[in-house]
C-alpha cells in the first residue's frame, strides 16, 4: 500500500474541525449539567414537569450541533 502523504495544511484543518466539535461538546455538557440538575430538582417537587424538564435539558445541544456544522464547513475547505 502506497504511503499517503498528508500535508501540514490538511492536518491543521483536521485539528481545527476536531476542536470545533470537541470544545462545543464540552460547552454543551457544562450547560446541560446545570439545567439537568435544576430539572431534576423541579421534578422532585412536581412530577408533571418531566416533559418540560427533558426538553429544557436538551436545549444546549444546539451548541454542539453548531460546532458540527462548523467542522463540516472546515473539512469542506480541505476539499
Amino acid at each position, binding site marked *: 500500500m502506497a504511503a499517503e502523504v498528508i500535508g501540514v495544511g490538511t492536518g491543521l484543518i483536521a485539528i481545527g474541525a476536531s476542536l470545533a466539535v470537541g470544545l462545543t461538546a464540552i460547552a454543551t455538557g457544562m450547560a446541560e449539567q446545570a439545567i439537568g440538575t435544576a430539572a431534576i430538582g423541579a421534578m422532585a417537587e412536581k412530577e408533571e414537569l418531566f*416533559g418540560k424538564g427533558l*426538553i429544557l435539558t436538551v436545549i444546549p*445541544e444546539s451548541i454542539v*450541533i453548531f460546532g*458540527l*456544522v462548523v467542522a*463540516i*464547513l472546515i473539512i469542506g475547505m480541505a476539499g
Partner: protein
Amino acid sequence: MIKPKDMLKVSVFGPKTYMKSVIDTLYGLNVVHIEDHTKKAEDDVFDIGEPFEENERYAEILVKIRSMISNLGIKNDQAKENKTSFDIISKKANTLYSDSAALLREKEYYTQIATIYEKKEVEKALSQLNLYEEEGVDYSDFLYYIGFINADNETLRDQMDRMTKKFVLTSSSYRGITVTALFVEAKKKEKVDKLFENHNFSPIDTPVIKASFETKAKPAYRFIKLDREHDNAKTSLMKVKNRIEEFKKEHSEFLADSELRLRMESEKSESPLRFASTKNSFYIRGWVPKVNSKKLEESLNKITGGKVHIDLKKPDKKDNVPIAFDHPKIVEPFEAFMDLYTLPSYKEIDPTFFMFLTFPIFFGFMLGDVGYGLVVLGLFLALKKTMPGAKNFINAFIIASLVSIIFGMVFGEYFGYEEVSPGLGKMLGIHPEELVHGEETEIIYPIPHIFSRSHGIQELLSMSILFGIVHLFIGYIIGFINVWKAHGIKHAILEKVGWMIMFPGVIYLLTDFLGVVTGYIAVMLSVLVPPMPIMIGLAVLGLILIVIGEGARGVVELPALISNILSYARLMAVGLASLSLALVINDLAGQMFKSGVIGVISGILILILGHTINIALGILSPFLHSLRLHYVEFFTKFFHGGGRKYKSFGWR
C-alpha cells in the same frame, strides 16, 4: 382541524325543584364544562350548593364495593353501568360484603394455620394455652377439643354458655388466630361438634394429645406427626381459595357494574358543590361546544318543561375559554405533545395538525433505518396492549416509526448495513459498484437506495437546513394569521412580515456566503434570492418593520433567525451519530466473525447489545430533538399557549 372547537358560554338558572333532573340531563349529555362557583365575598347572594342527601348512602355502599373489588382483585375497566334500582344494588352489595368478608377471614385463618405447621410452631401456639389440671374435678366423662378455631374467645364462651354450664374453655391468640382448648361433658358431643365445625375448628394432632392426656390428664407437648394436620390445613386452604374464585367469578360483573353506577351517582349527587345556589334556586355556569349547544337547550327544555332559564353566549375577549381539540382520529395522538407543553389558547391556531405533519418526518429522517424502524414499531405495538394509559404517546410513536421505515428505504439502511456481501449481492441481482481508494479498487454491492446518508454528508446537511427554512417560514405564516386575528392586519405586518422578507437574505447567507447549503438544493434555493440591491432593500425594510413592530428586542433577536435555521442541522447530526454507531457495531462484529467459534459467539453478543443500546438511543434522541425543534424553533414563531383543558361533566 387547526382550530379548537367553537365554544359557547352557557348559564342555566332555575328553581331547586328542577336541579336533580337538570343534573341528570347534563351528566347524560356529557357536553358541558362546568365552572366551579367560588364565593367571592361574604355577602355574595349565591352560596355554594350542598350535595344531595343520598350522597352519603351512595358513598357507604361504594366504599364496600370498592373494598371487595380490591380484595378480590376484580378488573373493572370493562364495566357497564348497572341500571337496576339503588335499593336492590345496596341490598345485594351488603350481603356480598359480609359473605366475602367471611370468606376472606376463613382464608386468612387457614393460611395462618398452614404457616404455623410449616414453621413448626405448634408447640409455641399450644404453650400459649394455660392448661392445668383442676383438683377434684372428674375428667372421666369429659370430652376435650384442642386446636385452632376461627372465632374469638367471647363468641365461643357465649355460645357455650347457652348450651351447657359444665365446660372449661381456655383460649389464646397466636399469629392473630385463636388457639382454644375446651373441656365439655360428653353428652353434648353432637352439639359441640356442630358448633365447632361452623367455626372451622382445626384440631391439633389429636391422637398424640389423647394418648398423653388420658394418662396424665395434661396435653402432651411433644408431637410426633404433624404432617397430616398440615395437609388438612392446606386442603382446607385450597378449598377456601376455590370458593373465593367462584365467588369472584359469580359476582365480579355485578360488582364492577355497580361500582361504575355508584361512582356516577355519587359524582352527580356531589355536583351541587360546584354550582351557585340560593335557598330556592340554582345557577350553573359553564361552557358547551357550539355543535352540542342546540341539543343541550332542547333536552333541558324538554325535561323541565321550559321552567329553567338557559342562556347561550359567545365568549368575549377576556374569557378563559376551555380548549376542546377538534381533530380526525389520526391526528389525535399528537395532542399528547400539546398536553406535555401547553394547550393553545382559544383564539390562536391549534398547532397539533402541523405537529402531525412534521413530527414523524423529523423523527423518521433522524432514525431512518428499516431494521430499527421495525423494532421500534414492534416495541410500541406491544406496549400499546400493556399501557392503555399512554395510548396517545404510543400511537404517535407508531406513526413515527412507520415513517422511519420509509426513510430507511430511501437511505438504504438496514440495521446500519448499507451493502451486502458479494455472494448475497449476486444472488439478489444487485448492481455492483466500484469503489476506488487511491490505487485499489473494491467492488461493493450496495442495497438499493435513493440517497445514501454516509456518502452525502454535505447534501444531508443541505436537506436539513432546507427543512428548517420551510418549517420556520410556515411558522411565520401561522404567526401572521394569529396576530391578524387577534390584533389586526397592521400588527400582523409589522410583527411577522418583517421577519418573512428577511428570508431571501438569510438564504443568501446560508448558501453563497457561508456555504452551509450546497449542491442542487443551493441552486434550487437561489431562485428565491433576488438580485443583490433588491435583497438588501428587502432586508433593510424587514429590519425597519421589526424595529417598529417589536422594538429593540426584535433587533437583538435577529441573529436568532439564522441560529434557529442552523439548529435544524440536528436532523443530520442525530441521524449520522446513530448511523455511525451502527456501522461501528457491525464492523466490530464482522471482524469477530472471522475468528472461530468464540469469535462468532462474542460477535453475536456485540451485535445484540450494541444494537439494543443504539435503538434505545434511537428512540430517545430523535424523539427529543424532533420535539425540541417544534417547541423551541417552530412554536416561538407563533404560539402563545396557556389554554386550559375542556373537561365535560359526565361519564367518559
